[in-house]
């Protein structure tokens, strides 16, 4: 039966690595030539670097091609062909979809897609959802404010393509969404980790509904790294009595990675559709071996309207040394996206990743899911303030929690913190992506 098939694409997902590389190289040459021939922005970039399509003769030659950064895309946009500017590779009338980045790191970047690109988006997501066990019998609830952000749009269309029944939870508020899940007995859901936990909190503490008694049995997360942070994943899985799977993607890249049902502690890179390179954060030198962190440079091998070629994503990742028991030959990145090169910052001379703090906070019983981190400079010394919330009735347990929190933070991040404890429900709540890390030091 179709539903028994383990892979969305049994050919591509089990290709020997050498063959994947051949496929990637062939497709890279094709998309590079396409961008060179159709985008003034890309041609000018490559001409300045003295490289043309015929110069790409081996895999190693790819490393000679200049990378593209988000700031470069910002600079060329809002000009003709309006509003996309010179990276647009197709006539404006072929663009059928507009999306934009969230603008978390600056002015948003516009993303045009043709109908082929839009089909490609849902194809990328079909690999994800099939690997996570979505099948035609599923009723998928999508509690997402369908809007200018790409978020779960492609998840919606991929679920349709797979044959699931899709319930768009668009403008409903959180309580109405929970009631609709209950009413329709939805079996799967897609949301950011922040919202998955927020929904569970609302159901339990404001509606008297235990979310684990609902029928959601798998949840696909995106937008934040939480589903790859063990303590956050565990909180979500326990709250909903569901398997929680991570996926990483981006508006200007596509849906490039996914966790499979084996939950191997990492994400598969969809190497049939994307070429992922890991480079040293300082030197830019390629990192091929597992176990060494670097930032991701990525190429979407089939995206046409506004190509994504050697895009410097700033995501920090590392190759896993182990193959996945699921049998896919697409390589794993260990622990998902570990952080962003521009988020992993030096505090008191130590590299600090916000997700390491999340792992500690969410691993301590008696603390709520919410927290905030503020880094400031007092005189010549960095100061880290961590605000956490006690669960209702947790005051009596505060000394135990504080001691455990201090110990774990010291152990996992090598840093000391000032701690502030707040009553349950007083720290800000977020519906989509949370903004919990604030660096107030000059120049940050």
């Amino acid at each position, binding site marked *: 039966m179709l539903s028994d098939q383990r892979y969305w694409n*049994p050919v591509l997902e089990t290709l020997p690595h050498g063959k994947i590389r051949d496929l990637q190289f062939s497709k890279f040459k094709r998309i590079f030539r396409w961008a060179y021939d159709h985008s003034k922005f890309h041609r000018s970039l490559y001409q300045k670097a003295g490289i043309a399509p015929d110069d790409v003769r081996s895999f190693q030659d790819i490393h000679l091609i200049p990378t593209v950064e988000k700031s470069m895309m910002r600079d060329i946009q809002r000009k003709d062909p309006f509003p996309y500017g010179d990276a647009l590779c197709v006539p404006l009338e072929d663009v059928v979809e507009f999306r934009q980045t969230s603008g978390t790191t600056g002015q948003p970047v516009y993303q045009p897609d043709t109908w082929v690109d839009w089909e490609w988006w849902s194809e990328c997501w079909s690999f994800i959802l099939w690997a996570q066990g979505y099948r035609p019998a599923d009723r998928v609830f999508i509690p997402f404010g369908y809007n200018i952000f790409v978020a779960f749009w492609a998840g919606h269309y991929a679920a349709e393509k797979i044959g699931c029944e899709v319930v768009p939870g668009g403008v409903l508020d959180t309580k109405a969404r929970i009631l609709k899940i209950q009413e329709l007995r939805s079996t799967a859901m897609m949301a950011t980790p922040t919202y998955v936990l927020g929904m569970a909190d609302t159901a339990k503490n404001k509606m008297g509904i235990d979310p684990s008694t609902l029928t959601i049995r798998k949840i696909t997360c995106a937008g934040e790294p939480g589903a790859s942070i063990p303590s956050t994943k565990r909180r979500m899985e326990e709250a909903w009595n569901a398997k929680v799977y991570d996926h990483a993607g981006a508006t200007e890249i596509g849906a490039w990675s996914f966790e499979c049902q084996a939950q191997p502690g990492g994400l598969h890179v969809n190497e049939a559709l994307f070429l992922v390179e890991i480079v040293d954060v300082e030197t830019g030198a390629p990192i091929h071996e597992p176990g060494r962190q670097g930032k991701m440079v990525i190429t979407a091998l089939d995206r046409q309207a506004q190509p994504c070629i050697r895009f410097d994503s700033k995501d920090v990742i590392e190759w896993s040394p182990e193959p996945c028991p699921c049998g896919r030959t697409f390589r794993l990145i260990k622990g998902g996206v570990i952080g962003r090169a521009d988020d992993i910052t030096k505090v008191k001379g130590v590299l600090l990743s916000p997700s390491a703090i999340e792992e500690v906070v969410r691993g301590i019983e008696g603390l709520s899911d919410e927290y905030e981190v503020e880094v400031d400079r007092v005189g010549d010394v960095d100061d880290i303030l961590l605000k956490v919330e006690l669960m209702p009735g947790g005051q009596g347990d505060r000394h135990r929690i504080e001691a455990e929190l201090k110990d774990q933070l010291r152990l996992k991040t090598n840093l000391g913190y000032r701690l502030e404890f707040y009553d349950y429900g007083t720290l800000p709540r977020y519906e989509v992506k949370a903004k919990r890390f604030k660096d107030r030091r000059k120049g940050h």
Partner: protein
Amino acid sequence: MRDPMERRLNLDGINAKIHLLKETAEELRLLADIFPAVLRNTDRILASVKMLEINVSDVLDLEKPGP
């Protein structure tokens, strides 16, 4: 050498039909240049054909001898 799964799937047969589908849709598109309903629906078919190429033809065509 193809593995057993690839042999069982008759990939060459699938690939041949994908090429035929594309050729047919492209011919249909030429016939429908002033017929919006046919033209735009054919464009959607061609977008789906592109996904078939991504899933099957791109990797199979690697094995074909170059020009």
